[in-house]
Structures are given as structure tokens and as C-alpha cells.
């Protein structure tokens, strides 16, 4: 039992690594994608739109397989499995985050830009000090949903052979003829998401000082 728990904790670390690295890369990449989606240049905005449609319109599991196996067919070799997982999750989640960012940015009244312009703010200052703080507040609920989904989605990494929490739990179940490991994995996911959920609640409260 102790041995099993240890194995599962190690696998949880892998799941958390996927989770953390995916956020680290996809949160900023999503902003870039959102900017591209809103670009005045129709070529850029259309290309980015197609990318978003593919990312949101096909299963993540298929994207992971593609990211891992496509380089074999094209270059004859691929990166390691873990890297493939991070790349796959990052480009998928960046698309979702981009759409949330875009919705948030477009919901800011045009008067905020006009006031900034007339006061003499630079474009960068307007974005960082006027627009972005208001966007963050507005997108927190949607981002919370997405991040919770990411915790659960880490289980898909096993499709290209990364031993994350769910894979290890399944293996243990098969080995020991018991559903216990899978049940424990469920509790682990639940606990991780309880923390995520609580963090977003706190953030939402913290930004509640204005409507």
C-alpha cells in the first residue's frame, strides 16, 4: 500500500509538471494568439482563426498523437514523449485562452481607449495599466473553468506513453485486481482541483474592490 501511494505521488508530480509547464507556456502564447486573431491584417487574423478552429474543433487526444508522431513521418525522428505532451497541451490551451482573452479585451468599452488616448497614454501603457487589469477581472471565471479542465486533461498524456497519475493508477489496478488505485487517483484529481478552484475564488474576491 505504501509502495503504491509512493508510485502514485511520483506520477502526480508528472501530472503537476504537465499542468504547470502547460500554463507557463500557454498563458502568454494565448495572448499572442489573441492579438493575432484581432489583427487588422486579414491574412494574419484568418490564419490564426483556422489554427484556433482546428485546436478547438478536434480532440486533444488526436492532437497529442499528431504532435508526437508527425515528426517521425516528416523528419524520421521525434522529440521525447514528455516534450511532445507539453507542446501538444500548450498549443491546444493557447487557443482556448486566446478566445477567452479576446472576449475579455473586446468587452472593454471603447471609452477606456479614448480616455487613455486623449490623456496621452502610450499604446503599451494603455494596455498594461488600463485594459489588461480590467480584462483579468472579467475573464477569471472562464479561466477558472479552463484550468480545472486542464488538471483533468493531464490524464490524456498516457496516450503517447507518459506515465502520469491516471496511467499509473490503471496499471496498479490491473496488477492488483483492485479498483482502489483508480479511486485514489480520483481523490487526487479532486484535491488538485479543489486547490485550483479555491485559488480562483480568492483571486476573484481580491479583485472585487470594484464592479
Amino acid at each position, binding site marked *: 500500500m505504501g509502495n503504491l501511494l509512493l508510485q502514485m505521488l511520483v506520477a502526480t508530480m508528472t501530472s503537476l509538471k504537465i499542468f504547470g509547464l502547460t500554463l507557463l507556456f500557454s498563458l502568454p502564447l494565448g495572448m499572442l494568439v489573441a492579438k493575432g486573431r484581432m489583427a487588422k491584417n486579414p491574412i494574419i487574423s484568418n490564419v490564426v482563426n483556422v489554427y484556433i478552429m482546428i485546436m478547438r474543433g478536434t480532440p486533444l487526444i488526436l492532437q497529442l498523437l499528431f504532435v508526437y508522431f508527425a515528426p517521425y513521418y516528416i523528419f524520421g525522428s521525434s522529440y521525447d514523449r514528455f516534450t511532445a505532451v507539453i507542446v501538444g497541451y500548450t498549443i491546444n490551451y493557447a487557443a482556448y485562452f486566446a478566445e477567452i482573452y479576446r472576449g475579455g479585451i473586446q468587452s472593454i468599452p471603447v471609452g477606456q481607449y479614448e480616455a487613455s488616448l486623449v490623456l*496621452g497614454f502610450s499604446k503599451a501603457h494603455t494596455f498594461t495599466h488600463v485594459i489588461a487589469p480590467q480584462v483579468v477581472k472579467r475573464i477569471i471565471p472562464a479561466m477558472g473553468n479552463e484550468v480545472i479542465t486542464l488538471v483533468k486533461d493531464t490524464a490524456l498524456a498516457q496516450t503517447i506513453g507518459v506515465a502520469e497519475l491516471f496511467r499509473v493508477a490503471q496499471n496498479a489496478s490491473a496488477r492488483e485486481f483492485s479498483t482502489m488505485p483508480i479511486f485514489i487517483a480520483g481523490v487526487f484529481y479532486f484535491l488538485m482541483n479543489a486547490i485550483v478552484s479555491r485559488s480562483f475564488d480568492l483571486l476573484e474576491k481580491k479583485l472585487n474592490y470594484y464592479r
Partner: protein
Amino acid sequence: MEIITIDNLQKSFDGLGVLKGISFTLNEGEVLSIIGPSGSGKSTLLRCLTQLEPVNGGTINVCGQTMVSSTKEGVVSYADKQTLRSVRLNLGLVFQNFNLFPHMSVLRNITEPQMHVLKRSKQEAEKVGRELLKKMGLEEKEKAYPDQLSGGQQQRVSIARALALNPTVLCFDEPTSALDPELTGEILRVIKDLAKEKMTMIVVTHEMAFARDISDRIIFMDDGLIVEEGTPEALFGNPQNPRTQKFLNRYE
């Protein structure tokens, strides 16, 4: 001294003329009111002046700098970035719906532009901010957020925010029309006080008694043109143009 000179200003939206050749000057210390029916182009005029809208023709000079000029053939050329920036700094604009920054406290709304645009220190900006809030009768509200204030208080904060940057000219676009009737008085009083201090101002308003009271000169606009221009006494007492007469009759 002429602070603003506008010559033959033209602006259209999707080919539809909204400003059809507007020309006027504004002198230092002068209060100019612009009146006219809704849709006559008053807001568009202020928006062209404050660079919120690009013009389609004409010339605008602000404080001796040419912001935009155009040839007889209609080729419009704007000044370089540096000049446009300096022109912008000469002009303040108070919006109909305030456009305060909701995530910043009242004081921060006033200090942020000073610090970023004029590079004032925080202490200096706060000193200026507090003085202006006092002048606006809002010294108790510096820590409040805009959504905790009445419309009239928000508009006073936005006036303070504009004044903090020491504009040469302050423009108002119907500063009271988003307010409940009982709150318009406090804003009109603030503008009147500024007029007494010889602040140069352009005020778009539909408060006729107020315009008559504070203005050195009044422009009546209709359908993208200046129909009549004169002193309050002349324009209200003895309007020449039938369109002016018809418009003013509605306010009798």
C-alpha cells in the same frame, strides 16, 4: 492670441458628410460654446480636434503647431508623431460619460496620467490631485472607486483628471447630458468657476441658459455647418438665421 484655428474642416463617415467645412478660431482665455441639434456634428468636431477621429480635409492649428493640413486637391497630411503628441497635451477632453478608469481609485485616476505623461513624481502628482479634488469638493473621496460615486461626482473627477495635465484648452462634450437633472448644477458650477479663472474652453452643451451665461462666443451648428456665430447677446437676443431661430424657439 489665437490658440486654435480650424479652417474648412471636413469629415465624413462612409462617404456621408458629417462636417462640411467648419472654420473658427479660439482665443486665449475665451469660452466658446457650441450648440445645435443632435446629429449636427458637434461631437465629431471635438473628436477630430482631439485626434479621436481622422479628418478628411481642412487644417487644424493648435498653439502655433499645425496638427493637420490639406492641399486644395484634398490630400490630408498629419504632423509627425512628436507634434501630434504635443498638440494632444495642449487639449483636454471631458466626455459625456466620464470614462474614468474603474479599477483605479479616484486619486489614482488623477495621478496616473500625470506620472505617465508628465513624468511627475508620485508625491507631486498626489499633491496636484488632492488640490484639484479639494477644488471639486471631493477631498473626502480620494480613496473611493468611481462606481461608488454619483454621476455628478464622477464627472467632477474626470474634470480634475483632465485639469491635472494643465491643458491649454479644455473641451467638454455635453458634460451634463448623462446626468440626472438634479446633478447637472454641480457640473455647470465647476465649469463656471473655470470660466472665471479664464480657462480657455470649448463647451458643447444643450444647456442654453448655461451657454448664454458663461460664453464669450457661441457657435450654432446644424447639419455639419456653422450656421451662426456670435456673442451670447447677439445669438440668443437677435438670431439672424431662420434655422437658429427655429432651434432656439424650442428652448423658450
